[in-house]
């Protein structure tokens, strides 16, 4: 068994309980997140209106939540929230804004420090880069926690998008995934009884 696998095993239980706690924490602080998410949706709508007026964008067909691995490296923990007119990622058909859902990433740096201390009890010597590798695992968990509230966020966005004057398709797909990866269709907004 290699060292990385040993470390992953060592934090396995910790990750499971952390995910549960985080999910509960996010649900408790859901209202604060909605507040900042509303601002993001409004900003996106404004951006979209501008692009549609200038003819650079057609009617929107998808709302995307994209994980940015780079933001985990820089410590900004932002994702890209975008609207696009075709189901393609990150091209000229998409406008996006960056958003950090505070409740999901709150205290992550302190958690990593605690994780480092915990691992140092199990391993006599541990390198900083090894802790960084495990940090990616925790952040992947956080992304999954965030994924669980996408439908609720989509509902919030739906009202604002439908009440806005942007050109939109009859229904809008809500997509979720990595910036460069395959996006998963979570739900539809705009269509009857789809959320």
């Amino acid at each position: 068994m290699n060292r990385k696998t040993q470390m992953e095993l060592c934090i396995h239980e910790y990750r499971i309980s952390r995910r549960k706690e985080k999910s509960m924490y996010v649900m408790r602080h859901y209202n604060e997140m909605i507040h900042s998410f509303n601002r993001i949706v409004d900003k996106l709508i404004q951006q979209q209106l501008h692009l549609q007026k200038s003819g650079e964008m057609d009617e929107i067909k998808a709302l995307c939540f994209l994980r940015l691995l780079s933001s985990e490296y820089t410590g900004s923990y932002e994702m890209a929230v975008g609207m696009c007119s075709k189901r393609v990622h990150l091209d000229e058909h998409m406008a996006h804004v960056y958003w950090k859902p505070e409740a999901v990433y709150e205290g992550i740096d302190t958690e990593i420090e605690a994780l480092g201390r915990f691992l140092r009890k199990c391993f006599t010597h541990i390198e900083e880069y090894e802790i960084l590798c495990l940090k990616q695992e925790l952040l992947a968990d956080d992304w999954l926690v965030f994924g669980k509230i996408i439908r609720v966020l989509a509902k919030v966005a739906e009202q604002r998008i439908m009440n806005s004057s942007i050109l939109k398709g009859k229904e809008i797909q809500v997509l979720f995934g990595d910036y460069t990866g395959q996006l998963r269709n979570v739900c539809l907004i705009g269509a009857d009884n789809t959320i």
Partner: protein
Amino acid sequence: MKYFELVNTPELKYAPKIKNWQTKVEEKDIQSKSFSQLPQTQLWVLEPSERIIFTDIILFPFLLVSPNVKKIIEMHQADCCYRDIILLDEVSGKTKLYHLPMLYETNQLQIISRKRGVIEGWQKLREENSARRPVIKSNIFQVRDTLMQHTIISLELAESLLSNRAFGIGLREVELIMKVKDGPIKNES
């Protein structure tokens, strides 16, 4: 679009260190017409070290990239020339192929670095500087200031590298703005 500077990271602690690198290539050769005169392949010996990890990126003294990273860069930036560099660890006898890229370089841009964790202030700063933001079509390039050369990559390239699990990538988010000169601001294309 976000841009990042490639910076040092704990992953680079055991990255290969090149022996007598001052005699290998002069910095000006990588940026000028003389790049074509560099041999297609060179063998560089490494400083002896107890532990060497062949990271996907080496930052010092020149940017060197692994074949894996080269492949990813080529998907985003086709017009980039490379020279092959074979690194030899004399202690273990191991060799590893790297590539020395010749990147577009500019001294017309000013770099503002984002401090870790800053959100509101950074967005404000970006908005304030939006008029001076250049149009950039490269996904990887270098910005020279009075002190040093900075390698800058686009969000797209950064995400591709990270999703392909490139090892040894340190990133710092930067805002790139045109330097203010006496005349009007010119955008780069």
